[in-house]
């Protein structure tokens, strides 16, 4: 009897401790959210993790809510707390399934927090995926969207080759939510095999029409840190002094379905060179976007005259979304300036001089300009023409 009373006392104390913690998680959550660069606040965050890890399962929605606007590092601390709490309560029946589902289906909540909530819910509810994933096709969370797309691909496959229009309709729906390259390629092939056209340039939001000028000097890598005249002033009518004499702005466009602008092939296989590319992008309103691009060359990016990022790396591979540069677009015209550098390596594998660049939201969904094609210039000619106007020197080299 005494033993039982002790047990009850311990349970009551434990419940009381959880209750006290639940009363105000904010100091601990703030300690985590306040971590800064280079390990700043790590000790306080770790102490907060220790305290929060003893939270009740009922606190999970509040901990998940703290993901909102938290830094990527703070999110990882918070994730650890959620995992620890979920581990402790996985089998005691206290995981708040209903609240978690509400959190998941509230699409304004942080995408990663919603995904983590789904993972916790799925531990105690094996039907959650079948119930929730089909509605995630256009979700802000890339992981949810991927799951939904994969279900539709499976559905289309299961219809068989004779399904015709029905399969096309399912594949089209799948494509509407797909942003991962592997899935987009699979869907695109399935549609093309069925005689359908697929516009991947628009699907991904690749920018295909550019003004271009160069080459400027990049021997011994000097070009990356040298501010040539386009960095000082963008004057498309000006004659510029470059590596091999005077040059003028020309135009380049690509019809590659993945938006690759291949300078080496369509202009000239310049080595030890810097080319500048410029484009305008009409935005319907102010909005947060990401410029995502792939290139095996060194680069710098400016939008509306503001330097965003640069990377001094050559020939370490190229892939869609290799780099992600977040920025804010302004209403109306936005001017994009890109500096693309080629080194002097002679190896066969070091000859690529190309880039593909797109504009999308943080989840990877294309953000298209107001005009269907972001014209490089107002006097742009045929979009199918590879190189429409370049300097005489460059034109000669391209023949």
């Amino acid at each position, binding site marked *: 009897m005494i033993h039982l009373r002790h047990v009850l006392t311990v349970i009551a104390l434990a419940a009381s401790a959880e209750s006290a913690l639940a009363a105000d998680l904010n100091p601990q959550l703030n300690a985590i959210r306040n971590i800064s*660069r*280079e*390990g700043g606040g*790590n*000790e306080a*965050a*770790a102490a907060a*993790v*220790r305290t929060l*890890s003893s939270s009740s399962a009922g606190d999970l929605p509040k901990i998940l809510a703290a993901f909102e606007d938290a*830094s*990527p*590092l703070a*999110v*990882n*601390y918070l*994730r*650890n707390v959620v*995992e*620890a709490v979920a*581990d402790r309560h996985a089998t005691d029946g206290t995981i708040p399934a209903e609240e978690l589902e509400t959190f998941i289906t509230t699409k304004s909540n942080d995408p*990663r927090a919603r995904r983590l909530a789904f993972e916790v819910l799925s531990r105690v509810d094996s039907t959650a995926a079948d119930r929730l994933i089909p509605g995630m096709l256009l979700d802000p969370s890339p*992981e949810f969207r*991927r799951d939904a797309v994969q279900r539709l691909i499976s559905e289309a496959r299961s219809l068989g080759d004779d399904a015709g229009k029905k399969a096309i309709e399912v594949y089209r729906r799948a494509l509407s939510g797909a942003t*991962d390259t*592997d899935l987009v390629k699979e869907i695109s092939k399935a549609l093309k095999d069925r005689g359908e056209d697929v516009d991947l340039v628009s699907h991904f939001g690749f920018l295909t029409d550019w003004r271009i000028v160069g080459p400027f000097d990049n021997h011994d890598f000097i070009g990356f840190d040298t501010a040539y005249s386009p960095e000082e002033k963008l004057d498309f009518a000006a004659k510029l002094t470059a590596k091999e004499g005077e040059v003028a702005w020309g135009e380049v466009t690509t019809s590659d379905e993945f938006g690759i602008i291949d300078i080496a092939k369509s202009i000239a296989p310049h080595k030890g060179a810097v080319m500048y590319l410029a484009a305008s992008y009409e935005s319907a309103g102010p909005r947060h976007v990401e410029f995502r691009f792939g290139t095996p060359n060194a680069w710098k990016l400016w939008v509306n005259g503001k330097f965003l*990022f*640069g*990377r*001094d*790396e*050559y020939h*370490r*591979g*190229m*892939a869609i979304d*290799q*780099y992600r540069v977040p920025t804010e677009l302004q209403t109306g015209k936005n001017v994009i300036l890109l500096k693309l550098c080629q080194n002097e390596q002679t190896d066969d594998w070091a000859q690529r001089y190309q880039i593909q660049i797109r504009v999308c939201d943080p989840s990877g969904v294309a953000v298209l300009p107001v005009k269907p094609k972001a014209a490089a210039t107002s006097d742009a000619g045929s979009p199918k023409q590879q190189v429409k106007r370049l300097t005489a020197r460059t034109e000669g080299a391209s023949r």
Partner: protein
Amino acid sequence: MIALKMNSVRQLILLSAVVLSATGVTGADWLQFRGNDVSGVSLASEIPATWSATENIAWKIDLPGRGLSGPIVIGDRVVVTASSGFRQDRLHVLSFDRASGDKVWERQFWATGRTMTHAKMCVATPTPASDGTRIFAFFSSNDVVCLDLDGNLQWLRGLTHDFPNASNSLGMASSPIVIGDTLIVQVENDAESFATGLDTSNGKSRWKKVRPKKANWSSPTSFQNGDAEPLALLQSSAGIEAVDSHSGETVWKFGDGASTIPSSVVTGDSLLVPSNGLTALRLGVQLADDVKSPEVLWNDNRLAPGTASPIVVNGKVFVINRAGVLQAADVNTGSVLWKLRLKGPFSATPVAAGNHLIFFNEEGGAQVVDISGAEGAIVGENSVGETILCTPAIADNEMFVRSDGHLWKIAK
């Protein structure tokens, strides 16, 4: 008084490191890439020369993601990292019961740095490290996560989050090591290249050094000379830079270049560097004030390792070249003693258990070579049937190896 106390604690930790270094792997643990003393050798261990699905495989378990990182062993736990997701941006740290293979815990994180890698690599390429009480998991995204042995987060760093141009589009592979109370991490690439010594208690940088701007996948090693502060030996295309592990102060440099893939190995008072083939440096002497580089003992350009790092056992250095030829050479002179062709190609660094060297090739074939005689002899050929790129771990008479999909314990 406080300073004295802190210094005493540090000395105690350093002494532990020295003891480990002097005696080699204790047999019970395998705490980092190539083991506790970064040698890859466990002389007291005896691993079966042959195994199959029905023989000498204690357990085989599924892993949730890819990984080139080797397992580490801490007491009764085996810890492995993995990465998953279309973008390889989900980072996993998993702890398994060493006896049963049962998963004890798993923690996941989202990558905060870039996750693009060469198709052969993945984000979980560097092998984690441990000081015996904490786990330090490092990923190609340059995320560093410190957990206690129960999976409780101690601290984390996002080194690309802090230094946004620190990345490599082919992936990062250098495995960190623990020296005393400092975690040595090389984040070396074509753009923002550095090495740093992180305080193991809170993840803050004790030091950060600018390093050559060139992609580098080699891993650091350590050397202890008498009572001096242990040195972290940082390899790069420029050569070797020896730094005080606690302060980061450069002690000496070897500037004759080195490979950016296979890593150096310390044996006694020598360092064998994959440089112009293989170059032996004398470490165990105090350099005069006007001498900035250690003496070169010997060099042999025929002993160039491929991807796998050299390993030293009983006075011989063993090097596997790009053609899959194993060469044994006298560690004091560099004289080649014998050669043996193996079935490659190899990414995994071999490990030694007793008189056996164990080589996993990329197809998952394991060749066990007896090195006790005048010539090497293959005494066992096995296959796990999956791609193996990691360096295995040995603890007591057990070996642990992982693929992208599985973790095996090989033991009688």
